[in-house]
């Protein structure tokens, strides 16, 4: 078999954990090879070994049948291995062209000679259908475009093995489609691709073969065409995963959240949320669906008190909270799973325990005369860690920064749900998580609903919108354009509303 890269019996240990345990990965020339695994299964570690960021304790790497030693990213680059990181490595105030040539600049007597480089970049972008303006500033282009710049960087360096580390996590559905096309195009031109992901749909769509990791071990490599999504997810999680969200009929009760004419302006006076009115009842999950950037974030921030409302009223359990402080909203029973877990959701330098009491530390349970009861904090944290299955190296004392993304998200959910809120605002609660964690979070949301709580879910994932919610409000350019029953519409119809080409007046 013609393998371009072979990683044989790789073992990589960190203190306390074996990140990769005897993992073997063989990449054929010209294929898209998916690397599938839960958060923290060791995918990124394995790729970091290949990219020269880590030295494995055991195992060997072959390139074109020859053993090679990769000590740092320079070696990897010399061997034609390139990587698109999940968080792009771009200089934001440089142009696209400047970013692409950064590090391999063509110079003449110490001065930059851009003409040749520009020609090559334009050629490449035409050949691979990666349209991007070489003179645009990176800070001005979309995330999808930035990713193209990263791909062009690899192509410019004539890499033949391209590693994509969860490339779709940051993209909109349309951009994901584009990327899939680009990846196929790249393999037609002879490149080989390693594609790290935990999204099964994408693997089905583009990958030829798939290697599954679970808890650092290699579970197996399969031909994607020959297995079903269910089989792959079972390999990944180690048990059967239910894709259909099981839930009973909703029994909406009293209104929990009443929003009337809510308006939020940007600092330039543009209406980001425009005269929005809706009601969320106890015992139902209402989902705000829409394409990213249509005012969802601002709407939630205004509801949570993090942005001032420029008009309208917000009532929580009948009480006007339009101008209430964030803390009084919390105390009145509003919980909030924020969109950006690193910016808003966690204090990454605090321990897990300290993060779990972030909204309760001032309650008599945890303090006496202004002194924190650390024992009580620890006990409470241990309770949540067990109940919500939050995994971390050192339990409650683990620094939040060192936890995996999925477990960070679980910690936030544990904290917010355990506040026993009347209203739970959940903004993209499953973003970037694997199927097991997603299933778990959906169950939590439904459990809240069944306990008679109101849930307002904001999601960009159409599957999630259709499966979890009891009612869908579509937001388009800051306005609610439709109030839909998920059982009565199709995904295609929903897409039309989200794109703004149809509207139906909300109640």
């Amino acid at each position: 078999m013609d393998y371009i890269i072979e990683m044989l019996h790789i073992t990589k240990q960190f203190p306390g954990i074996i990140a990769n345990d005897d993992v073997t990965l063989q990449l054929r020339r010209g294929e898209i090879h998916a690397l599938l695994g839960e958060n923290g299964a060791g995918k990124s570690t394995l790729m970091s070994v290949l990219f020269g960021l880590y030295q494995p304790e055991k195992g060997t790497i072959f390139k074109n049948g020859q053993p090679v030693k990769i000590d740092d990213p320079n070696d990897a680059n010399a061997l034609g291995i390139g990587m698109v990181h999940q968080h792009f490595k771009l200089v934001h105030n440089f142009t696209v062209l400047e970013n692409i040539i950064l590090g391999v600049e063509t110079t003449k007597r110490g001065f930059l000679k851009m003409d040749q480089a520009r020609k090559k970049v334009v050629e490449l972008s035409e050949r691979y259908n990666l349209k991007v303006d070489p003179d645009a500033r990176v800070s001005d282009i979309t995330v999808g475009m930035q990713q193209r710049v990263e791909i062009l960087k690899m192509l410019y360096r004539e890499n033949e093995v391209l590693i994509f580390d969860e490339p779709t996590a940051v993209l909109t559905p349309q951009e994901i489609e584009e990327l899939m096309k680009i990846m196929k195009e790249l393999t037609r031109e002879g490149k080989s691709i390693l594609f790290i992901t935990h999204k099964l749909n994408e693997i089905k769509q583009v990958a030829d073969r798939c290697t599954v990791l679970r808890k650092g071990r290699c579970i197996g490599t399969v031909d994607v065409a020959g297995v079903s999504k269910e089989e792959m997810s079972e390999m990944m999680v180690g048990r059967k995963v239910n894709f259909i969200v099981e839930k009973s009929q909703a029994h909406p009760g009293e209104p929990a959240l009443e929003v009337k004419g809510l308006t939020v302006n940007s600092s330039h006076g543009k209406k980001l949320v425009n005269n929005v009115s809706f009601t969320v009842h106890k015992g139902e999950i209402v989902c705000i669906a829409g394409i990213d950037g249509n005012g969802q974030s601002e709407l939630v921030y205004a509801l949570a008190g993090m942005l001032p409302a420029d008009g309208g009223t917000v009532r929580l359990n009948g009480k006007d909270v339009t101008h209430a402080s964030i803390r009084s909203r919390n105390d009145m029973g509003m919980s909030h799973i924020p969109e950006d877990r690193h910016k808003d959701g966690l204090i990454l330098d605090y321990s897990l325990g300290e993060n779990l009491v972030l909204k309760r530390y001032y309650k008599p349970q945890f303090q006496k005369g202004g002194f924190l009861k650390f024992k009580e904090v620890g006990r409470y944290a241990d309770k949540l860690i067990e109940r919500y299955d939050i995994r971390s190296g050192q339990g409650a004392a683990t620094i939040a920064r060192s936890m995996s993304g999925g477990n960070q998200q679980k910690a936030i959910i544990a904290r917010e749900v355990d506040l026993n809120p009347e209203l739970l605002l959940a903004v993209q609660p499953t973003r970037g998580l694997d199927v097991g964690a997603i299933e778990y979070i959906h169950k939590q949301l439904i459990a809240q609903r069944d306990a008679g709580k109101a849930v307002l879910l904001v999601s960009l994932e159409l599957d999630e919108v259709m499966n979890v919610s009891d009612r869908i409000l579509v937001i388009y350019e800051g306005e609610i354009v439709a109030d839909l029953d998920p059982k009565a519409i199709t995904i295609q119809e929903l897409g039309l509303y989200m794109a703004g080409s149809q509207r139906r007046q909300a109640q």
Partner: protein
Amino acid sequence: MSKFRRFLESRGFINAASSILAIVVGLLVGLVILLVSNPSEAFRGLWVILQGGFGGGAKGVGQVLYFATPIIMTGLSVGFAFKTGLFNIGTPGQFIVGAFAAIYIGVKWTFLPGALHWIVALLGATVAGGLWALIPGIFKAFFNVNEVISSIMMNYIGMYGVNYLVKKNIYDSLKALSQNVAPTAVLPRAGLDKIFYNMTGANNVHDASTVNCGILIAIAMAIVVYIILNKTTFGYELKACGYNRHASRYAGINEKRNIVLSMVISGMLAGLGGGLLYLSGANGRRIKVVDVLAAEGFNGIPVALLGLSNPLGIIFSGLFISYITQGGNYLQRLDFVPEIIDIIIAAIIYCSALALIFKNLVVRLVGGKKKEAEDIAAEAGRAGMSGKGLLPPEETPETPEKELAADQEAETGKEE
């Protein structure tokens, strides 16, 4: 794992070892400068420095304590601000403003009963320092003006303002210094003069050190700051705001109020330091009306860094820097010119301030694993060194592996 090994890998050992290693390197650099400037006396010079305060007998030790007092206070000021995510470089201003308030009350408010006089003067110093930091705090919290810039400006306003006010109100034009404070405003000796004195002359005169209860107050303040930061909900909130302003706001913490309070408390500590140094008897310090920012203020920065911003560590780092400075003074006996002495002392302090770099080194030596170095680096971030003023805000990577990966790329600087 043996007990010894566990001790080696404990956080306390690593912290102490890194500070000590920093000091050793600083001393070696000092030795090089000694060798360059006066080779024949270099090693004796180093010995004099190492002897530090002990070179002056019991009185010398007392002087070490006296001069450690203000830098422990400014060190606490800087360290407290670091822990709450702020870089208070305004300590010279807050320090001198506090000093002025203390002296003014000490000289003018003689109507106060004796037992209260010095206490009121210290309170005045504390309040003045706090007010001086209030302004940058408000600018930072409400207008997002970088506290480094605004507090540096406040340093100059404070220095020139105090010079003007000293000349106008409490100037001793014969000595060109601020006036002596009333005896009731001098800090009580608390018996320390009975310990730290030298016998001089044929008549066995007690030549007592200037040391007074200031050092005890400084140590008490360090303990108070330690308790506030580590045991109280107030400290929890302040540190939360320092680490992540957005998340604190999200959690319902009034982050603007906390930023202002952090600055004010930091300023109060520096202002109190000014009071403690200047409310001293006949041979203590006086304000010289010169256009120089108070060195005790800036010295708070290396004290805080060497103490890794830990209030208890700051007690020791303050004592150490005072000790080594005293040793430097005695170098003049060996015909070293004062400028060279200043350079040597500065070099030692400079290296000491790099304790954090040595921390990584110690971890690698002990553990030999990069991953732990990473943990320690995160811990160092926790210690507050990545306060916004000092280092650019770091990205928040998803996983530790990626964080390490990002770091190593930065190290090699040659990802592509």
